[in-house]
């Protein structure tokens, strides 16, 4: 053997041995409880909070933040394998049907009441974030971040004496936080001054995922419209009604009272339109409001979304904690241990201190301390009682896709509102029939 080879051989053997032993040591260690969520401030807050769990139990928690644009695809590709890299997934409310019916989410119906009184969870959060079918009492998630769309407005503009006088002169009433969508439109019209680069309002209207649908829903239900029949999945005759058409026409009118490109703004772009100081009012999820508050301080105000004819409904947001079925039983136990800890009231009280750490705990939501904690907590607590969600059936994504397309066509003027709704209703029934959700 050549001298070089003679000297390299022991090194090679040593490195192989070291590699094997480190692999063995790795498998002996307990892998942290792995939680997947998309990249945003509440996920960072959860990672911080989870350190308390580690201190108390010695069990490490790894909160992985996945870029939002590819979050859904990455999660479901993981579920396509035999074992998921995550133990807990914080899934969008709309995913729960797919998670429950395809055997991806562990059913928690038997276990959850042993760690928390179910009536301590806000009924709307339970219905839309945790149960499938909605209100069935079958739990597939525990509430994590509860969210709804709310209103943020430039308080300094609303309180400006000259603006108030001009508004009163034009509309014959005080410039105040809008309680109805008509008042909202008037205020948006009043502040819509493109020559001064000042705009009335901004809504989520993005076409890439669900923004447009979530933005529109606030008007849909307030105007008396529906996605489907109250007691069934029938769509034709329930969606394409005069009430839904009126809501969509009104929404299109509001979109035109926004900044340039207002007909296609993702959640981040809506926030940008408000934070660049050009827009008087924005409708977006409460989870985005901490950064607005941090930027504007006293110059911004928050409120629930307006209503119509005494009906006020906010689009639901937020996600629940679900345990993957595709992990080992001992990992499921660890995941349950973390969720049980997270749901405890003292932990929830620490959770609400994190940015956008909105709880579903009814007692905390009703407490004066919570309502006074930030300027947006009280309107959030008031909104949660009115929130509703889009479809969460297993084919939600196809329903969402056609909804985004047809609403977009109506907003862009490519189809009349009625034609868009008629086509949308027919498309939805086709999808539901193919999925076996309609006879």
């Amino acid at each position, binding site marked *: 053997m050549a001298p070089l080879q003679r000297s390299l051989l022991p090194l090679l053997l040593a490195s192989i041995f070291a590699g094997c032993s480190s692999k063995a040591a790795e498998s002996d260690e307990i892998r942290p409880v792995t939680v997947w969520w998309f990249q945003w401030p509440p996920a960072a807050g959860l990672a911080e909070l989870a350190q308390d769990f580690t201190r108390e139990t010695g069990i490490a928690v790894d909160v992985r933040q996945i870029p939002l644009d590819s979050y859904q695809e990455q999660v479901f*590709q993981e579920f*396509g394998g035999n074992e998921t890299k995550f133990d807990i997934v914080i899934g969008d409310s709309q995913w729960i049907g797919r998670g429950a019916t395809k055997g991806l989410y562990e059913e928690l119906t038997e276990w959850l009441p042993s760690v928390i009184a179910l009536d301590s969870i806000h009924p709307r959060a339970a219905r839309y974030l945790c149960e499938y079918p909605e209100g069935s009492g079958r739990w597939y998630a525990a509430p994590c971040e509860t969210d709804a769309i709310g209103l943020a407005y430039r308080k300094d503009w609303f309180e400006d004496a000259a603006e108030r006088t001009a508004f009163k002169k034009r509309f014959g009433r005080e410039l105040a936080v809008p309680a109805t969508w008509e008042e909202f439109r008037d205020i948006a019209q009043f502040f819509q001054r493109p020559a001064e680069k000042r705009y009335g309002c901004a809504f989520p209207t993005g*076409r890439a995922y669900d923004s447009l649908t979530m933005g529109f829903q606030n008007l849909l239900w307030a105007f008396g419209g529906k996605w489907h029949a109250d007691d069934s999945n029938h769509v034709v005759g329930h969606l394409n009604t005069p009430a839904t058409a009126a809501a969509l026409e009104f929404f299109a009118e509001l979109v035109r009272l926004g900044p*340039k490109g207002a007909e296609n703004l993702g959640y981040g772009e809506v926030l940008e339109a408000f934070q660049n100081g050009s827009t008087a009012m924005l409708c977006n999820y409460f989870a985005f409001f901490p950064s607005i508050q941090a930027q504007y301080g006293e110059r911004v105000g928050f409120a629930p979304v307006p209503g119509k004819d005494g009906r006020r409904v906010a689009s639901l947001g937020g996600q629940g904690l679900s345990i993957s079925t595709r992990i080992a039983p001992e990992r499921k136990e660890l995941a349950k241990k973390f969720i049980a800890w997270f749901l405890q009231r003292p932990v929830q009280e620490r959770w609400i201190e994190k940015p956008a750490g909105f709880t579903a705990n009814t007692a905390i939501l009703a407490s004066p301390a919570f309502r006074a904690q930030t300027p947006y907590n009280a309107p959030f607590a008031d909104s949660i009682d009115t929130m509703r969600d889009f479809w969460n059936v297993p084919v939600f994504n*196809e329903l969402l896709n056609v909804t985004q397309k047809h609403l977009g066509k109506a907003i862009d003027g490519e189809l009349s509102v009625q034609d868009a709704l008629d086509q949308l209703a027919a498309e939805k029934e086709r999808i539901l029939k193919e999925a076996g959700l309609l006879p």
Partner: protein
Amino acid sequence: MTAPRREMLGYAFVAPTLVFLVAFNVFPLAYNLVLGFTDAELVARGFEWRGTANYGRVFADPEFAQALRRTGLFVASAVAIELVLGFVVALALRARFRGRDVLLTALLVPMMLSPAVIGLFWNLILDGNYGVLNQALGALGLAEPQWTTDSDFKFLSILLIDVWMWTPFMLLISLAALNSIPGTLYEAAEVDRAGRWTVFRRITLPLCAPLLGLAALLRATDALKQFDLVMAVTGPNDERTQTVSTLLYQVLFRDGKLGLGSAYACLALVLVIALATVFTRYLDTLARRST
């Protein structure tokens, strides 16, 4: 070495490549064909046979027809513009002048960047509110279109980005084609007092045609897969910009329908093969003519 042994050695040499090809090309293709006749889902265990139902659905789907038309329009427009622009710039760069090499290197940079990165930074340039382009147009008192959100401009914006990115490729191939033309032909034309247009029409263009055709074929097959730019600029489900690839992504990874998506993919593959066959036959014809 005996003949059988030499034969065995031959097989041994090609075996790794064959295994690789079967594992990563033949098997996925065959499996995709099988899945196209099932109701397989991304997250569900097992599947059931659906016969030709998926194909029936694809043929009846106006969304697929629209994505095909959109992709066809994109390929035809992008390849034509890039070919003409690339060839024109190559003609201009054929002459030797000071700084030519630096200019050529600078012109080639876009095609060396990742399409996803290009999509993201063009998003910033084209942003309706704070993009550099609209700032410049606004400063000149011109209209400021919403390049990436207005339904009349979205597709054009993606086309513009693709042209910016891939014209250098056509330029490079065109330069190679121009440089391969023997100088003696031009000298002979000069002796015959042929005009510039005649020289271009009778010598330059015919002799460049096979290589330009090949470049067009390569770009067309690449443009048929257009995905990155659409994803970066508008996302996969925007009807105005949806290509076959982004529709496939939507069906497979968002809707999770493996069976249906496989049927879409098979049909798309058939179309690509048909197009490639037409192109290669055309190239063969050109080659026969030139010999």
